[in-house]
Protein backbone atom coordinates (compact mmCIF):
# COMPACT_ATOMS: atom_id res chain seq x y z
CA UNK A 1 0.00 0.00 0.00
CA UNK A 2 1.29 3.44 -0.90
CA UNK A 3 1.11 5.79 2.09
CA UNK A 4 1.28 9.53 1.52
CA UNK A 5 1.03 12.34 4.01
CA UNK A 6 -1.00 15.38 2.98
CA UNK A 7 -2.14 18.62 4.53
CA UNK A 8 -5.62 20.11 4.20
CA UNK A 9 -6.32 21.25 0.63
CA UNK A 10 -3.58 19.08 -0.79
CA UNK A 11 -4.47 16.36 -3.27
CA UNK A 12 -3.53 12.99 -4.69
CA UNK A 13 -3.84 11.89 -8.31
CA UNK A 14 -4.87 8.28 -8.94
CA UNK A 15 -4.29 7.44 -12.57
CA UNK A 16 -4.78 10.45 -14.78
CA UNK A 17 -8.44 11.10 -14.01
CA UNK A 18 -9.12 10.54 -10.32
CA UNK A 19 -8.24 13.22 -7.80
CA UNK A 20 -8.61 12.93 -4.02
CA UNK A 21 -8.39 16.12 -1.98
CA UNK A 22 -8.16 16.50 1.80
CA UNK A 23 -11.03 18.88 2.46
CA UNK A 24 -10.98 18.94 6.24
CA UNK A 25 -9.53 17.16 9.26
CA UNK A 26 -11.33 17.23 12.60
CA UNK A 27 -10.20 14.96 15.41
CA UNK A 28 -10.12 11.45 13.93
CA UNK A 29 -12.35 12.32 11.00
CA UNK A 30 -11.00 13.19 7.60
CA UNK A 31 -13.23 14.75 4.97
CA UNK A 32 -12.18 13.76 1.46
CA UNK A 33 -13.22 15.29 -1.82
CA UNK A 34 -13.13 13.08 -4.89
CA UNK A 35 -13.07 14.22 -8.48
CA UNK A 36 -13.55 11.37 -10.92
CA UNK A 37 -15.20 10.83 -14.29
CA UNK A 38 -18.80 9.68 -14.29
CA UNK A 39 -17.88 6.08 -15.15
CA UNK A 40 -15.79 5.63 -12.06
CA UNK A 41 -17.85 4.54 -9.08
CA UNK A 42 -16.80 5.97 -5.71
CA UNK A 43 -18.05 4.55 -2.42
CA UNK A 44 -17.06 4.18 1.22
CA UNK A 45 -15.12 0.94 1.24
CA UNK A 46 -17.23 -1.11 3.64
CA UNK A 47 -20.42 -0.14 1.76
CA UNK A 48 -18.82 -1.05 -1.55
CA UNK A 49 -17.69 -4.44 -0.22
CA UNK A 50 -21.10 -5.27 1.16
CA UNK A 51 -22.99 -4.34 -2.02
CA UNK A 52 -20.42 -6.11 -4.17
CA UNK A 53 -20.75 -9.26 -2.03
CA UNK A 54 -24.54 -9.22 -2.18
CA UNK A 55 -24.44 -8.68 -5.96
CA UNK A 56 -22.10 -11.67 -6.28
CA UNK A 57 -24.52 -13.75 -4.23
CA UNK A 58 -27.44 -12.60 -6.36
CA UNK A 59 -25.77 -13.16 -9.74
CA UNK A 60 -27.43 -16.23 -11.20
CA UNK A 61 -25.23 -19.29 -11.21
CA UNK A 62 -27.78 -21.94 -12.06
CA UNK A 63 -31.21 -21.90 -13.62
CA UNK A 64 -33.62 -20.30 -11.22
CA UNK A 65 -37.15 -21.58 -10.82
CA UNK A 66 -39.11 -18.40 -11.53
CA UNK A 67 -42.36 -20.26 -11.37
CA UNK A 68 -41.70 -21.45 -7.81
CA UNK A 69 -40.73 -17.91 -6.85
CA UNK A 70 -43.87 -16.47 -8.39
CA UNK A 71 -46.04 -19.07 -6.66
CA UNK A 72 -44.43 -18.31 -3.29
CA UNK A 73 -44.92 -14.60 -3.87
CA UNK A 74 -48.52 -14.88 -5.05
CA UNK A 75 -49.62 -17.17 -2.24
CA UNK A 76 -48.00 -15.01 0.45
CA UNK A 77 -49.50 -11.89 -1.07
CA UNK A 78 -53.01 -13.27 -1.04
CA UNK A 79 -52.48 -14.50 2.49
CA UNK A 80 -52.88 -18.14 1.67
CA UNK A 81 -49.54 -18.95 3.15
CA UNK A 82 -49.12 -19.71 6.85
CA UNK A 83 -50.07 -16.44 8.54
CA UNK A 84 -47.14 -14.88 10.37
CA UNK A 85 -47.79 -11.69 12.24
CA UNK A 86 -44.59 -9.74 12.75
CA UNK A 87 -43.76 -8.77 16.33
CA UNK A 88 -44.24 -5.06 17.00
Amino acid sequence: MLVLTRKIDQGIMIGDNVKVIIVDVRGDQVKLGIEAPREVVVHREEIYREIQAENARAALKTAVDLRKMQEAFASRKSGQGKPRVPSE
Partner: protein
Amino acid sequence: MVVATRLGELNVEEKDIVQFPQGILGFEEYKRYTVIEQEDSVFSFLQSIDEPELAFVVMYPELVDGSYSVALTKEQIALLEIDNPSDGLVYGIVTVPEKVSEMTINLQAPIVINKNKNLGAQIVLMDGKYHTRHNVLAELQASAYYEAKKANA
Protein backbone atom coordinates in the same frame (compact mmCIF):
# COMPACT_ATOMS: atom_id res chain seq x y z
CA MET B 1 -29.58 -8.17 -32.34
CA VAL B 2 -29.41 -11.74 -31.13
CA VAL B 3 -28.00 -12.01 -27.62
CA ALA B 4 -26.93 -15.20 -25.89
CA THR B 5 -28.42 -15.19 -22.40
CA ARG B 6 -29.14 -17.50 -19.51
CA LEU B 7 -32.61 -17.87 -20.98
CA GLY B 8 -31.21 -18.95 -24.32
CA GLU B 9 -30.76 -16.81 -27.43
CA LEU B 10 -32.94 -13.74 -27.41
CA ASN B 11 -33.74 -11.01 -29.86
CA VAL B 12 -32.92 -7.73 -28.16
CA GLU B 13 -33.62 -4.43 -29.86
CA GLU B 14 -31.27 -1.45 -29.55
CA LYS B 15 -34.02 0.48 -27.81
CA ASP B 16 -34.12 -2.13 -25.05
CA ILE B 17 -30.42 -1.92 -24.27
CA VAL B 18 -29.65 0.10 -21.15
CA GLN B 19 -26.19 1.62 -20.67
CA PHE B 20 -24.74 1.45 -17.20
CA PRO B 21 -21.78 3.90 -17.32
CA GLN B 22 -20.53 2.61 -13.96
CA GLY B 23 -21.61 -0.97 -14.47
CA ILE B 24 -22.93 -2.73 -11.38
CA LEU B 25 -20.87 -2.93 -8.18
CA GLY B 26 -18.39 -5.77 -8.46
CA PHE B 27 -19.13 -6.14 -12.19
CA GLU B 28 -17.94 -2.77 -13.39
CA GLU B 29 -16.58 -3.97 -16.72
CA TYR B 30 -20.05 -4.91 -18.03
CA LYS B 31 -21.87 -1.78 -19.15
CA ARG B 32 -24.85 -2.98 -21.16
CA TYR B 33 -27.94 -4.68 -19.83
CA THR B 34 -31.49 -5.38 -20.85
CA VAL B 35 -34.52 -6.08 -18.67
CA ILE B 36 -36.36 -9.24 -19.64
CA GLU B 37 -39.84 -9.33 -18.25
CA GLN B 38 -41.62 -12.60 -17.64
CA GLU B 39 -45.26 -13.19 -18.42
CA ASP B 40 -47.39 -13.57 -15.30
CA SER B 41 -44.52 -12.92 -12.97
CA VAL B 42 -43.46 -10.06 -10.76
CA PHE B 43 -39.89 -11.24 -11.29
CA SER B 44 -37.85 -10.04 -14.26
CA PHE B 45 -34.27 -10.60 -15.32
CA LEU B 46 -31.59 -7.97 -15.61
CA GLN B 47 -29.42 -9.61 -18.25
CA SER B 48 -25.93 -8.52 -19.24
CA ILE B 49 -25.54 -8.03 -22.99
CA ASP B 50 -21.76 -8.30 -22.77
CA GLU B 51 -21.58 -11.45 -20.63
CA PRO B 52 -24.27 -14.05 -21.36
CA GLU B 53 -23.72 -15.81 -18.03
CA LEU B 54 -24.39 -12.66 -16.02
CA ALA B 55 -27.99 -12.06 -15.04
CA PHE B 56 -29.90 -11.02 -11.95
CA VAL B 57 -33.47 -11.51 -10.86
CA VAL B 58 -35.10 -8.14 -10.20
CA MET B 59 -38.48 -6.93 -9.02
CA TYR B 60 -40.19 -3.65 -8.21
CA PRO B 61 -39.44 -2.81 -4.57
CA GLU B 62 -42.90 -1.30 -3.98
CA LEU B 63 -44.33 -4.81 -4.28
CA VAL B 64 -42.47 -5.65 -1.08
CA ASP B 65 -42.56 -2.26 0.63
CA GLY B 66 -45.34 0.03 -0.59
CA SER B 67 -43.66 3.10 0.87
CA TYR B 68 -40.30 2.49 -0.82
CA SER B 69 -38.87 5.57 -2.47
CA VAL B 70 -35.46 6.54 -3.77
CA ALA B 71 -34.07 10.02 -3.22
CA LEU B 72 -31.28 10.62 -5.71
CA THR B 73 -28.36 12.93 -5.07
CA LYS B 74 -27.60 15.58 -7.67
CA GLU B 75 -24.62 13.53 -8.86
CA GLN B 76 -26.88 10.53 -9.38
CA ILE B 77 -29.46 12.67 -11.19
CA ALA B 78 -26.68 13.96 -13.45
CA LEU B 79 -25.29 10.45 -14.03
CA LEU B 80 -28.70 9.18 -15.12
CA GLU B 81 -29.57 12.45 -16.93
CA ILE B 82 -32.91 12.53 -15.19
CA ASP B 83 -35.08 15.54 -16.07
CA ASN B 84 -38.26 14.31 -14.43
CA PRO B 85 -38.82 11.93 -11.48
CA SER B 86 -41.16 9.95 -13.72
CA ASP B 87 -38.21 9.12 -16.01
CA GLY B 88 -36.88 6.72 -13.40
CA LEU B 89 -37.67 3.04 -13.10
CA VAL B 90 -36.54 1.38 -9.88
CA TYR B 91 -35.78 -2.30 -9.39
CA GLY B 92 -34.36 -4.27 -6.50
CA ILE B 93 -31.97 -7.15 -7.11
CA VAL B 94 -33.32 -10.37 -5.65
CA THR B 95 -30.98 -12.96 -4.16
CA VAL B 96 -32.49 -16.42 -4.51
CA PRO B 97 -31.03 -19.05 -2.18
CA GLU B 98 -31.70 -22.81 -2.31
CA LYS B 99 -34.90 -22.31 -0.34
CA VAL B 100 -37.02 -20.02 -2.50
CA SER B 101 -38.98 -18.85 0.54
CA GLU B 102 -35.80 -17.27 1.83
CA MET B 103 -35.31 -14.99 -1.18
CA THR B 104 -34.16 -11.51 -0.28
CA ILE B 105 -34.25 -8.17 -2.04
CA ASN B 106 -31.52 -5.54 -1.87
CA LEU B 107 -33.33 -2.35 -0.95
CA GLN B 108 -30.17 -0.48 -0.06
CA ALA B 109 -28.68 -0.59 -3.54
CA PRO B 110 -31.50 -0.48 -6.08
CA ILE B 111 -31.09 -0.44 -9.84
CA VAL B 112 -32.39 2.84 -11.23
CA ILE B 113 -33.00 3.15 -14.95
CA ASN B 114 -33.81 6.33 -16.87
CA LYS B 115 -36.20 4.81 -19.36
CA ASN B 116 -36.11 7.84 -21.65
CA LYS B 117 -32.36 7.83 -22.03
CA ASN B 118 -31.73 4.11 -21.48
CA LEU B 119 -29.20 4.89 -18.77
CA GLY B 120 -28.91 2.82 -15.62
CA ALA B 121 -26.95 2.61 -12.41
CA GLN B 122 -26.92 0.81 -9.11
CA ILE B 123 -27.60 3.53 -6.57
CA VAL B 124 -26.50 3.10 -2.96
CA LEU B 125 -28.88 4.63 -0.43
CA MET B 126 -27.13 6.00 2.63
CA ASP B 127 -30.06 7.03 4.80
CA GLY B 128 -29.85 3.88 6.91
CA LYS B 129 -33.47 2.94 6.30
CA TYR B 130 -32.71 -0.11 4.16
CA HIS B 131 -30.16 -2.88 4.02
CA THR B 132 -29.14 -5.42 1.40
CA ARG B 133 -31.19 -8.45 2.45
CA HIS B 134 -34.86 -7.83 3.03
CA ASN B 135 -36.78 -11.11 3.13
CA VAL B 136 -39.26 -10.74 0.28
CA LEU B 137 -42.03 -12.95 1.65
CA ALA B 138 -41.75 -11.76 5.25
CA GLU B 139 -41.81 -8.08 4.28
CA LEU B 140 -44.68 -8.71 1.90
CA GLN B 141 -46.60 -10.26 4.76
CA ALA B 142 -45.59 -7.41 7.07
CA SER B 143 -46.67 -4.65 4.72
CA ALA B 144 -50.02 -6.36 4.13
CA TYR B 145 -50.44 -6.63 7.90
CA TYR B 146 -49.73 -2.96 8.48
CA GLU B 147 -51.97 -1.92 5.63
CA ALA B 148 -54.80 -4.02 6.99
CA LYS B 149 -54.18 -2.55 10.44
CA LYS B 150 -54.31 0.97 9.01
CA ALA B 151 -57.48 0.20 7.09
CA ASN B 152 -59.12 -1.19 10.19
CA ALA B 153 -58.04 1.58 12.53
